[in-house]
């Protein structure tokens, strides 16, 4: 029987094959597009436009997972079977977890994309991430309210992994600091939020933390606004991608936003390089552009140090790696591969043409929001 | 129930034919439960059966006892309730009141299939077949039920097994030998009727209900089909037959039951019934 992996002759220095699996179609295609564009910008930046590391070409193969874990696994197996040692990507946590499993089973390097699940951190030796995780979101919000001790916080979220993760995160981060944390979790498929807005008011909290994703976001904000939630309680939530800026409705300027990233959040070489690269390619900097950018930087580092074939060395080269990126200085924690990174507080304001734009309120230090070390 | 037939017509019938050869049964009296008929126990008995759908009383206190081996014709104007009576006997409809007994066992509340198992077979006014299956398959399904284990996972029908052979034999007997492999839905009207009878023969039921077996059958085929029905009747099987073709009724049956407006008007020998003026006017009309 023929062997599966092709043994490489070192003399020829063949290209390093990198498999990128993310959504080009399907429900998360827009996130996938931002990630993809960010990656290309990052690769261009990290290789000085050569696409090669130390003379070794990086051959990037893009696969569309369609938001479907089964497709992603099939593609991963195909690539791994062809001898790929580096995989990266995906915006959906479910897919990222499946790919992490494949990485461990087959001992390759995997760098997950914008998927936010905390579970990815420390899941196994072979898996890294290039974006933020829920914990960091929550911890950022925690910095908005001063001393949380004795305050009552209600988490308003969808009853799915993302929402439950956020509730758990708030309980862990702010509950640990003495806040009482309750959750109002709404069935994911619910379409009517008015009664829940009422329920929020009835709970009489000091802060409402909203963790919401998906199309129903607009309706949810409208309901909160209509029931007068903003008049009584400060509300915090994560700022989504550019297309959602209109979704917060009239109350946009009353919400405190925590942000993973938006174009105006930082001003450094990397962000300048990314934004100009994206603009040159008919694209714009968005929420998940840095995730792609960072992934590219990490891959370049791994190949530089580990040569693209030696998975063990590549992993070692990333553990504890600190580098400058779009969001500022980033450290990959050796213990659990958490990505320690600055986060932002933002506000939306309405321009003359009626569109909403975010502006930076404050940059939150990476150390302040660093997740507790996950048990491996 | 505005225009019920006057009761005296029944009395007339009674007096016209005092002691018929077979067991005469008249609707007005409770027949079996009250006074069991000595000798032959009726194989099928219907006691005070009433069926009400919405406000309409479609069967009204119908009582009838059929001795084993009899061929009984059921006639009556359109809408008299003949088909409904068959439906109540076979379990397609449940009587709102009254009792249906088969061999002394009460089956009033039993589902269709249980009655079929107990030995009741029927055809429908418009042919009802497994339209997409072949003629042989249609009959074989019926034959299997008789033999038991009809729905067994462990038994496989084969070209040479007993059920198939029996099915083909039955098909030959009704003259469908050449159509064994034909899809039932594509058979001509008359052949469909014959196929239904072949299925009945394969089931070998004790009591058979035929609902207008001759409807739509060409005059040329009538004698043949009559012969098939006669065969069906052989071997002590009891047959009830709704039929409008009087020559068929008169040529086959031992007794005739007349229904009108959901009631049993009379049940008597063919001659007596035909001679009855009410039957003449309500059913036969002024002889076309």
């Amino acid at each position, binding site marked *: 029987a023929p062997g599966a992996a092709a043994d490489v002759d070192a003399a020829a220095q063949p290209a390093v094959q990198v498999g990128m699996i993310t959504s080009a*179609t*399907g*429900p*998360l*295609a*827009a996130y996938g597009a931002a990630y993809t564009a960010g990656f290309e910008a990052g690769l261009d930046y990290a290789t000085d436009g050569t696409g090669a590391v130390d003379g070794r070409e990086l051959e990037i193969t893009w696969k569309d997972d369609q938001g479907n874990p089964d497709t992603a696994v099939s593609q991963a197996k195909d690539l791994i079977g062809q001898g790929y040692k580096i995989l990266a990507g995906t915006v959906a946590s479910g897919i990222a977890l499946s790919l992490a499993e494949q990485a461990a089973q087959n001992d390759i390097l995997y760098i997950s994309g914008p998927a936010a699940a905390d579970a990815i951190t420390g899941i196994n030796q072979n898996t890294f991430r290039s974006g933020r995780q829920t914990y960091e979101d929550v911890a950022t919000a925690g910095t908005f309210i001063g001393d949380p001790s004795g305050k009552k916080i209600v988490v308003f979220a969808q*009853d799915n992994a993302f929402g439950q993760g956020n509730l758990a995160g708030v309980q862990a981060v702010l509950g640990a600091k003495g806040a009482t944390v309750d959750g109002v*979790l*709404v*069935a994911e*498929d*619910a*379409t*009517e939020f*008015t*009664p*829940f807005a*009422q*329920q929020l008011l009835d709970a009489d909290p000091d802060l409402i933390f909203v963790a919401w994703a998906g*199309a*129903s*976001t*607009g*309706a949810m904000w*409208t*309901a909160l606004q*209509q*029931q*007068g939630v903003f008049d009584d309680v400060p509300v915090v939530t994560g700022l989504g991608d550019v*297309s*959602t800026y*209109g*979704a917060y*409705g*009239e109350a946009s300027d009353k919400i405190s936003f925590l942000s993973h990233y938006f174009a105006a959040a930082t001003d450094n070489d990397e962000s300048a390089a990314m934004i100009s690269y994206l603009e040159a390619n008919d694209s714009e900097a968005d929420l998940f552009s840095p995730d792609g950018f960072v992934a590219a930087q990490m891959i370049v580092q791994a190949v530089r140090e580990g040569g693209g074939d030696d998975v063990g060395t590549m992993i070692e080269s990333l553990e504890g790696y600190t580098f400058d990126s779009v969001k500022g200085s980033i450290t990959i924690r050796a213990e659990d591969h958490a990505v320690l990174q600055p986060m932002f507080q933002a506000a939306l304001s309405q321009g003359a043409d009626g569109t909403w734009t975010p502006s930076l309120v404050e940059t939150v230090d990476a150390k302040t929001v660093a997740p507790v070390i996950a048990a491996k | 129930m505005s225009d019920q037939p006057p009761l005296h017509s029944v009395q007339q019938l009674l007096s016209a034919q005092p002691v018929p050869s077979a067991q005469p049964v008249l609707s007005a009296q409770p027949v079996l439960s009250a006074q069991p008929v000595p000798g032959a126990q009726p194989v099928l008995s219907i006691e005070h059966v009433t069926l009400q*759908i919405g406000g309409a009383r479609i069967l009204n206190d119908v009582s009838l006892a059929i001795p084993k081996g009899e061929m009984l014709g059921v006639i009556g104007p359109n809408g008299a309730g003949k088909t409904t009576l068959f*439906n109540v006997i076979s379990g*397609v*409809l449940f009587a709102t009141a009254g009792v249906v007994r088969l061999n002394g066992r009460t089956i009033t509340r039993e589902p269709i299939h249980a009655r079929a198992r107990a030995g009741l077979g029927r055809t429908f006014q418009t042919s009802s077949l497994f339209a997409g299956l072949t003629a042989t398959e249609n009959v074989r399904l019926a034959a299997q039920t008789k033999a038991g284990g009809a729905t067994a996972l462990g038994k496989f029908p084969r070209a040479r097994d007993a059920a198939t052979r029996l099915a083909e034999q039955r098909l030959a007997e009704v003259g469908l030998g050449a159509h064994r492999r034909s899809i039932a839905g594509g058979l001509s009207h008359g052949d469909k009727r014959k196929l239904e009878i072949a299925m009945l023969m394969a089931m070998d039921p004790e009591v058979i209900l035929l609902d207008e077996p001759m409807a739509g059958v060409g005059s040329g085929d009538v004698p043949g089909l009559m012969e098939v029905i006669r065969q069906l009747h052989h071997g002590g099987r009891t047959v009830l037959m709704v039929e409008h073709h009087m020559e068929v009724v008169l040529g086959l049956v031992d007794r005739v039951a007349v229904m009108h407006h959901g009631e049993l008007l009379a049940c008597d020998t063919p001659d007596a019934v035909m001679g009855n003026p009410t039957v003449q006017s309500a059913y036969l009309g002024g002889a076309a």
Partner: protein
Amino acid sequence: MSTLVLLLVTGLGLGALYFLVASGLSLIYGLMGVLNFAHGSFLTVGAFIGWEVSRRLSDGSWWALVAAMLVGALVGALAAAATEFFLIRRLYNRHIEQVLVTVGLALATVALFEGIWGTDPTYVTSPAWLAQTTEILGARIPNNRFLLIALAVLVLVTIVGFLRFTRYGLIIRAGVENRTMVTALGIDVRRAFTVVFAIGGAAAGLGGVLASIYYGYVSAHIGSSLLIFAFIVTVIGGLGSLGGAAIASVLVAVLQQFANFYLGGTGDLAVVLALAAVLLVRPRGLLGAKGSTA
């Protein structure tokens, strides 16, 4: 108390939306025996085109909304009529194939909408009054719910009147049963069926515009997410019964609201269990045609 009122009235509003989808579905099923999986797409296309129109006119004004509703209904009707004409008609009397064709159409059109309008929701602006609330018994009811309810009632009355009082209604009801025989009575039944589809499509298209107001956005999946509830409503109400669909819409939506709120977000589960329960107790649904006994 105010929560109760809120749940009830918003339930009614959601029910109105369900009814707008279910009415067409029920009509088409009841009259033609076609379980139309593409009905959600009629809704979506009505919503998108309606939104495109309103955006070009003057977003957020009343007359733009009216224009959007008219255009939405028209587009829904055209889409439905075209579906009937090019797909369903060729398969007449083959009900399962008809269902399958609509399944294919639903798959294809949702993908197409994603291709054209993208996967992100498109947010819509409606007249300011609709975004405000009116207080009833201490509950602040969003005004757009009243619009939904009023239009749903209007649609119900119109369709019932159409079926009851026009010859078309008669033709349609007969054609469901035996299309051939209707033709043999000298009636062009195909046209009647196209009309039915168009009416159902119009209700869906109108529903699409209203749904976009209710949700605040339009997306390629807006129709399919409503469709499943519309199916449930149609079946609970009794296939083909408009009145049943109306009652079931309200019941389902209110049940959903209450279960979501009081029973830990189990609205969906409650609804499907209700469906199973209703069908097991009354296989023909609440107001299903009693029909013949056998």
